């Protein structure tokens, strides 16, 4: 009887760290957006711009 070996992909720790850092940046970004809006409406776009740059990482 042939036995099949199945490799089960393991969650990579590097990916989890990346997610935690990203979620931390999202939280900071939300605060910064509110602060930016209070400082002058256009300034509220800085935090989204930063996150857009961070997530462009996938385009490596």
């Amino acid at each position, binding site marked *: 009887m042939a036995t099949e070996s199945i490799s089960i992909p393991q969650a*990579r*720790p*590097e*990916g989890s*760290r*990346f*997610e935690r*850092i*990203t979620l931390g940046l*999202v939280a900071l*970004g*939300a605060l910064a*957006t509110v602060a*930016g*809006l209070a400082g002058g*409406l*256009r300034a*509220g*776009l*800085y*935090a*989204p*711009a*930063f*996150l*857009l*740059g*961070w*997530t*462009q*990482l*996938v*385009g*490596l």
Partner: protein
Amino acid sequence: MAGKKKVWIGNVAAYTVAGGIASALVGSGLSLLGRALLPAGLGSVSVAIALVVTATAAVRELGWLSLPLPQWRRQTRDVWAKRFRGPVTAAFWGFDVGLLFTTWFTLSGVWSLIAVAVLSRDPAYAVSLLLVYWAGRALSVWLTPLMLADAASTPQLLDAIGGRRRFVQRVHALALAGALGVLAALLFQGRGLGA
């Protein structure tokens, strides 16, 4: 080990500074393009246009709309690493990536920033916006050591992040939602993107 760290920091610093210079050039260029092509006093119309572009990018990243990205499908040149020393190569890469339009981007949110930069017709604001965008891109390089399990695990890191594309796309869409909220507030107040 300390020597290698110094070399790494030097290379990433060169990448960051060069990319910042390129981003500033792109920001000022886009705003001046806006000044050349668009009339002054667009007011809420400029915000409405930016809203449409941003919303389109957001629905694309949520997978609700299949839209090819207008872009130059080119990556920055590996061959530079063979021709030039570390910091020079890093600076070339940073400048190339910072120019935005000369390399491809897999996510569409940058078009929202491009629209805002053009429509603002305000070089100082457009430069600062693109610099902040670049800061986000460069930070991912600076924080790479925090995400690596060990010094040799860069391929695993890239693999792991690539496997989380859906998560990254959702965060990208969330950032666009944040931008939509800000633009909606501008529209509600009857204000434009200009100074």
